């Protein structure tokens, strides 16, 4: 694949005119997917998919395109050369774009992480025997993911990684569920079976009768998986400099009115673990770490080079969409084993569901509780709760209502696959709140 990418890039760069510049990105995967439902296979199959994206800059105009590659060199080279011609003709018709950033000469990088994954035809045989009699619903995804980028100024980056994940829910007869993900790059049958067994133990906690809470404000603990969902909202009208400049960001109050969050809340974009590439689609390389919010103060947003050009601010080489690629929230000092005692009487939320802004500029987010969520009294779990709608502002739950942050962090892998399997995940601790608004 890497040689194929280089060959296609060379053919395109050779075809460029002197006044033109070109950035090329590749994304691809060789993936096996198996859906399970109730210890049975619902669907199984595999996908080989590679696409190449081009960004042509010519005469202060920009045109972009992407196309599926076949992996056959002559065919793909001819196709992308034809596409370059089409882009050239189209660019001539477009308005001048004053904020174009031509690709700059930069770094090169290479990362190729091999793993030990089950062969596609062996997946079911490894997964299903351990699930006999277990009511489970979930998705297995495994294989190699590719990302690459090169530009006509000489930058070149290659990233390939083998990985697998079984993202699953276990269900008890009362339809209470626990959620877990077993993920990695080296398959280990014993570890997998241990993951299932541990989830079954958690599921047993849900056997107690359910408790129906009334709407109101509750002391609440949100476990790392739920916190990860909350932080995910910051990629959508959130910590984007462009969203800030166009009035669409939920963080306007922090920028314009010097509103701060709790000193216990710090969030950074941190690539040091190497889970995702640091380069973006223009081959620009992000700093290894960007402190976005430090001790409750907004330090900077994610700034793409295009936004930097438009608004005269400094770029930190964010992706053009200015979304979080490798978020890490700082830990606190509440030991995980002390969470229930510190909560005292209140709500323990393992997972959240279907989040959306209910008032973006008020920082208000709504969503549901989901999976293993409990009512706790005097530090002891009383029983699972019926799912509740919540609606609260991050200016509260990461602000004055934030009582403690756990000392332990958890990586919540991104198992999404819209348009292709995602890389990386969100690393964050749990949070203890002295108030959280449950509304329905």
């Amino acid at each position, binding site marked *: 694949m890497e040689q194929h990418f280089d060959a296609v890039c060379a053919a395109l760069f050779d075809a460029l005119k002197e006044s033109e510049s070109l950035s090329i990105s590749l994304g691809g995967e060789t993936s096996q997917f198996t859906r399970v439902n109730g210890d049975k296979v619902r669907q*199984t199959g595999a996908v*080989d998919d590679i696409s190449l994206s081009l960004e042509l800059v010519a005469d202060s105009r920009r045109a972009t395109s*992407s196309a599926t590659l076949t992996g056959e060199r002559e065919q793909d080279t001819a196709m992308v050369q034809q596409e370059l011609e089409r882009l050239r003709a189209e660019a001539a018709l477009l308005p001048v774009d004053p904020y174009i950033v031509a690709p700059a000469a930069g770094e090169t990088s290479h990362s190729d992480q091999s793993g030990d994954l089950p062969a596609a035809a062996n997946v079911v045989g490894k997964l299903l025997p351990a699930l006999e009699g277990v009511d489970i619903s979930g998705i297995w995804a495994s294989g190699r993911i590719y990302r690459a980028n090169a530009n006509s100024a000489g930058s070149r980056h290659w990233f390939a990684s083998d990985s697998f994940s079984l993202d699953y829910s276990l269900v008890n007869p009362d339809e209470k569920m626990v959620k877990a993900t077993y993920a990695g790059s080296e398959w280990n049958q014993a570890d997998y079976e241990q993951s299932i067994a541990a989830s079954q133990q958690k599921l047993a906690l849900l056997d107690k009768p359910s408790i129906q809470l009334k709407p109101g404000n509750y002391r609440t603990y949100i476990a790392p998986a739920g916190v990860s969902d909350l932080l995910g909202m910051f990629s959508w009208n959130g910590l984007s400099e462009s969203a800030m400049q166009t009035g669409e960001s939920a963080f306007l109050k922090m920028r314009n009115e010097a509103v701060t969050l709790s000193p216990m809340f710090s969030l950074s974009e941190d690539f040091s673990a190497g889970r995702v590439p640091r380069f973006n689609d223009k081959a620009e390389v992000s700093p290894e770490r960007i402190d976005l919010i430090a001790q409750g103060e907004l330090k900077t947003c994610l700034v793409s080079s295009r936004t930097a050009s438009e608004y005269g601010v400094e770029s930190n080489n964010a992706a053009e969409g200015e979304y979080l690629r490798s978020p890490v929230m700082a830990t606190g000092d509440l030991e995980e084993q002390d969470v229930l005692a510190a909560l005292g009487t209140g709500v323990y939320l393992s997972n959240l569901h279907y989040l959306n802004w209910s008032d973006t500029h008020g920082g208000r987010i709504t969503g549901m509780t989901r999976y293993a969520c409990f009512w706790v009294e005097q530090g002891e779990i009383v029983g699972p709760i019926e799912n509740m709608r919540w609606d609260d502002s991050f200016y509260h739950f990461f602000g004055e209502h934030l009582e403690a942050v756990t000392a332990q962090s958890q990586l919540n892998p991104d198992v999404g696959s819209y348009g292709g399997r995602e890389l990386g995940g969100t690393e964050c601790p749990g949070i203890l709140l002295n108030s959280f608004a449950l509304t*329905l």
Partner: protein
Amino acid sequence: MDLTRLLGQIDVPADWVGLRYVDETTTTRWVRDGHPQANDRCRDRGIMVEVLADGQFAYQASSRVDAASVQDAAEKALAMAKAAAPYAIHSFTDSARPAATGSYQSPFEQNESAMNAGDINDWLLKSCELLKVSDKIVSANALARIVQSDHYFVSSNGSHIDQHFLIVTTGSMAVAQDGPVVQTRSDSGMRARSWQIGLESMDEQRMIDDSIRVGEQAVELLSAEECPTDTRDLMLAPDQMMLQIHESVGHPLEIDRILGDERNYAGWSFVRLDDFGKLRYGSDLMNITFDPTVPHEMASYDFDDGGAKAERAFIIKDGILQRGLGGIESQQRSGVPGVADFRASSWNRAPIDRMANLNLEPGESTLDELIGSVEKGVYMEANRSWSIDDYRNKFQFGCEYARLIENGKLTKTVRNPNYRGISSHFWKSLKGVGNADTFEVYGTPNCGKGEPNQVIRVGHASPTCLFENVEVFGGEQ
């Protein structure tokens, strides 16, 4: 692409083989604040080779469509099917992929060549300029997306289908700001204006009128009061009914959800298999159809991706649940009557149950009669926020724009309108359904579901509707 010839060259000991080839080109043009943001063309094409062996389907999807690659894909799919067969959730036969032949072409007057890239950018630039009705408009956006999607399906039991779709989405949006107050307004919610249509959709006079109205209403919202927080009658415009139908009727009635396939992701449903044919879902005024025959609606088609013939059917009649939204596989697994909605987002995803065109049929009330019947209410337009629980019951939705209804008249504009409710109660509170004059057709290209994840196009059409005693509220004070 000669799929029949490719199919004939496959040699595997399978009980059935199908080839589904999709070639889709999406052109996106976006202008913000007078400058181009995106001029992008994405061409996505490939083939899914699906086999049935020992009662289990399996697939191998690839962008390589030469005979040797397709043979290799069929062999890999066969190996996966045989490995999975001992654990099959249901033992299928080729009756799940009925033999079908036919063609579909979506309706249009002007094809993509009617406007070149420069023409479309000029159209979008003009929209942006008109959106900026005041210095208080801090951001003006205009978008056009054109999708040409060609689908081909052949199978070893005799299917031969080709379907061709030309889809155009246009949208404009203005952000207005006055000090700390920021409001956003769009034409019917971003991307709701999505239809199977040609470039005649990009009518200049409509764009002029809509852009000015959107800009003016964004500014109007800045000085509006917050939506009140109380319980009152709620009248929803068709561009919000779209979302209401989608989330609280469409998804809970997908049979694969009820069967538990989606429990780990999109969720389950408050509807049970034995509810079909008897559950009172809503008031007598509620009539919901699955209708793939509506011209220009976004998810019209003749066949689903398993080859089932698509036909209009009542899902809910006079408030009573009749059938589910499930293709043949789900119908065979559940024994529940369904529809032809076994659909995939592209060549690289396997079909699952997806609502397509799901519509609320018009009633008999005029708009004036609906408004006149309300003593204390609020009228909301255009979705901006949506969230619902995994059983599709407890929902909370927000809109861009609202006006109070007081003593039978529309009165002042209010901002940040939201409402919440429970699906199984909400639809029973439907007390007024607008007539055909209030009926509007919309679509969304962004319905997410499935593992691996899929985003698919759906259409929703509805008249203006009135619900009684709904909890409404405004924004953060």
